[in-house]
């Protein structure tokens, strides 16, 4: 692995790699699912490691589910249905201007606002399992890694943003926008991190990380913004139409 | 001129269900046509093809004389409008006014024109007082009429409705059908409706297509269609109740009835001819309204 990242030819190599990755990514049938790490891509050791990271978060979410289900018997059907809705939203094609194709939102931001981050991890783990099994997006072996990126990073960052922004007195619509935006970017940063960790072999970690990050920029930067708009817009829609429903789902004083 | 011309259309869903197999379906401008068929006979699929939501595997579909594939979205949806069965799946704005204005605004009309259209169509469906109301506070019948208004606001030449009277009570059903009749007779709008309820149809539809398992069993004016009792049963339908009564009297009791009366008015006229004058109570005329 010598020579590639040596100073002299760094710039042109770097540009070439970015162009190559971005070019092929744009031609993918569903670029957003490039955010799911494909089945078989991670070496066994990494696959296991990410499982080990993911499982405590899922267990935490399940504990919360059990607890809130006892207070409020409605809760499991509610989580299941919100999960189904978020699954569908994440399957809806949205037009991404730069990629020239349609892409898909993650939906974790809005889910975290609705049912809280812990349960969003649970829902995301189920959605990812269904997608891995029946749609060949993501995979069973890479499930742990994908849960960490989509579920854990996405929902905790999204919910944290929402909470902090609300505490700081940011209007809810802006807070929702930020939550959607940052949850999407967090997912993408985490996925890039996971890919780098597995494949930087030999080359410098930070160089490869920034490389992958930048390669995804043309699609993920606007996609994050669209996700923010979606999150804010959908929340506004529900608030306008049926505010009482939000109270029902509310986690942590949502909306 | 043909408003709609469908010839030899086949359609198969991705999972292999053959929903339409060789359907011919023609509607002239200004007609009121009903597509009659049991659950799963392919009505909704046919409608999906007509409005371009589904693509036919083979066969030709022309709207107003032009191939459906050659029309832009804008041209197509000025020609055909679809009212869905469940208004809840169709109304997505917060208020009645916003929802009805959705289509005209997307046509980039000036705001006065948009408002004028909203007033016009809400008047047409007798829902003007609902203008400022929130959608989710409307009753089912009101929702149905508002969803019709939203489609009318696009001024489609052909209005297609999927089970317009499903879930409506008798009064709502009659009101909806009167409304459609008025649009058809007075505004010369072509109306196509899919349904499996047979009793109201004879009064309204010029022509009926009977659909069964993806095939057109028969088509023609309602008097003709309901003469074929076996065909009707094969399509898992039934005769209108009044016709059924007359059919049984004619067939099993040998009462001499001309053709097959479809409406209460026709049946009454025929029966009165059969009943001797002296049976009729004298002076009863005064009691009647």
């Amino acid at each position, binding site marked *: 692995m010598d020579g*590639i990242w040596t100073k002299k030819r760094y710039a042109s*190599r770097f540009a070439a*790699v970015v162009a190559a990755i971005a070019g*092929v990514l744009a031609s993918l*049938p569903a670029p957003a*699912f490039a955010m799911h790490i*494909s*089945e*078989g*891509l991670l070496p066994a050791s990494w696959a296991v490691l990410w499982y080990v990271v993911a499982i405590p978060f899922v267990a935490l979410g399940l504990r919360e589910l059990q607890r809130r*289900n006892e207070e409020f*018997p409605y809760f*499991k*059907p*509610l989580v299941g*249905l*919100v*999960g*189904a*809705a978020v*699954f*569908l*939203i994440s*399957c*809806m094609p*949205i*037009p991404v*201007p730069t990629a020239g194709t349609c892409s898909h939102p993650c939906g974790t931001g*809005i889910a975290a606002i609705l049912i809280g981050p812990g349960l969003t991890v649970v829902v995301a783990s*189920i959605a990812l*399992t*269904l997608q891995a*099994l*029946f749609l*060949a*997006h993501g995979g*069973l*072996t890479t499930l742990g890694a994908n849960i960490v990126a989509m579920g854990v990073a996405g929902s905790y960052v999204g919910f944290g943003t929402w909470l902090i922004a609300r505490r700081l007195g940011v209007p809810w619509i802006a807070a929702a926008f930020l939550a959607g935006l940052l949850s999407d970017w967090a997912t993408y940063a985490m996925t890039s991190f996971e890919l780098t960790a597995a494949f930087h072999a030999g080359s410098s970690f930070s160089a490869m990380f920034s490389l992958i990050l930048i390669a995804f920029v043309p699609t993920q930067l606007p996609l994050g913004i669209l996700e923010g*708009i*979606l999150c804010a*817009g*959908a929340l*506004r*829609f*529900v608030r306008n139409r049926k505010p009482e429903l939000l109270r*029902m789902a509310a986690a942590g004083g949502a909306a | 001129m043909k408003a709609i011309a469908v010839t030899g259309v086949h359609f198969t869903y*991705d*999972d292999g269900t053959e929903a339409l197999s060789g359907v011919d379906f023609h509607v002239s401008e200004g007609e009121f046509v009903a597509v009659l068929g049991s659950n799963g006979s392919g009505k909704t699929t046919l409608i999906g093809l007509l409005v371009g*939501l589904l693509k036919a595997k083979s066969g030709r579909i022309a709207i107003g004389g032009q191939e459906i594939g050659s029309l832009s*979205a804008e041209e197509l*949806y000025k020609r055909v409008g*679809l009212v*869905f069965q469940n208004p*809840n*799946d*169709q109304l997505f*704005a917060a208020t009645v006014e916003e929802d009805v204005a*959705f289509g005209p605004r*997307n*046509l980039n009309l000036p705001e006065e024109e948009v408002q004028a259209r909203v007033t016009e169509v809400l008047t047409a469906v007798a829902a003007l007082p609902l203008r400022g109301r929130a959608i989710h506070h409307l009753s089912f019948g009101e929702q149905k009429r508002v969803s019709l208004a939203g489609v009318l606001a696009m001024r489609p030449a052909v209005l297609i409705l999927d089970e317009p009277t499903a879930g409506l009570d008798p009064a709502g059903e009659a009101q909806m059908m009167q409304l459609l009749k008025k649009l058809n007779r007075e505004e010369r709008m072509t109306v196509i409706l899919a349904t499996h309820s047979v009793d109201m149809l004879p009064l309204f539809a010029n022509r009926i297509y009977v659909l069964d398992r993806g095939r057109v069993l028969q088509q023609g004016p309602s008097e003709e269609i309901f003469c074929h009792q076996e065909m009707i049963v094969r399509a898992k339908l039934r005769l209108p109740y009044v016709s059924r009564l007359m059919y049984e009297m004619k067939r099993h009791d040998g009462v001499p009835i001309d053709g097959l009366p479809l409406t209460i008015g026709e049946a009454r006229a025929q029966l009165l001819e059969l009943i001797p004058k002296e049976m009729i109570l004298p002076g009863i005329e005064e009691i009647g309204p």
Partner: protein
Amino acid sequence: MFDLFSDIFTYRDNALTRIDPRAKLVIALAALIAVLTAERVVLPLCVFGVCLGTVATLRIPAKLVTARLAAPLSIVAVLVVIQTFFTGTTPLFAFTVAGWHFTAKAEGLRQGALLGARVLGSVSVVFLLSVVTPAHRIFQAFRWFRISRNWLEIAILMYRYIFVLMDQVADLAAAQRLRLGYTARGRAMRSFTALAGSTIIHSLEQAKRTHDAMRLRGYRGTMPFGPLPALGRRDRLITALCLIGIVSARLLEWGVSK
């Protein structure tokens, strides 16, 4: 997208759909591990070939196969290209495009090909599993693996109501399209948020009605599951044979790589 989420083939009756889902899951996991730990392309590609062959024998439409494999295949392409040109030392060939020099390297090509073969092999294993096992059978098998009951309960509800909501969402989206809601970018985004919002509203309302219905049939916060049937002799035999096959293939590969 929506149409792909179709499990109609899993309800066909064939030799593979008749096998107990637990057996199939164990075999699939073993195959995944073998593919993932393989050090040369042969084993993953063999698995890929076997799975694809089986899928073809089951007469799964080519359209579905290509649709499912499209994304993984393009990932494989990216991997091979990137690794070939940017890793390794031994040059294979070189060319210049628009002033940029590209040198393909042997190690990179090998590494890329291995990664690509693993992706293909493992994707095809899961694909085969998914066309011979309906979701509810997989959930049943999960129970045997001691997956949390709460997780399964949510999964079952989610799976079921994805189909219900999907019908409503499809109608909503069609209604918007028919009134020209997607003809310009700004409009499209507005329609899209309304669609997402409606989906959430529908889901929350449905949750209430579903819970009412569950309660009226005795639901007290936990979905009851029936007992799992014992694993049949035939299934145990099949599992054992397949495991032996996979393990020996893996050992064979190990021997060869050494």
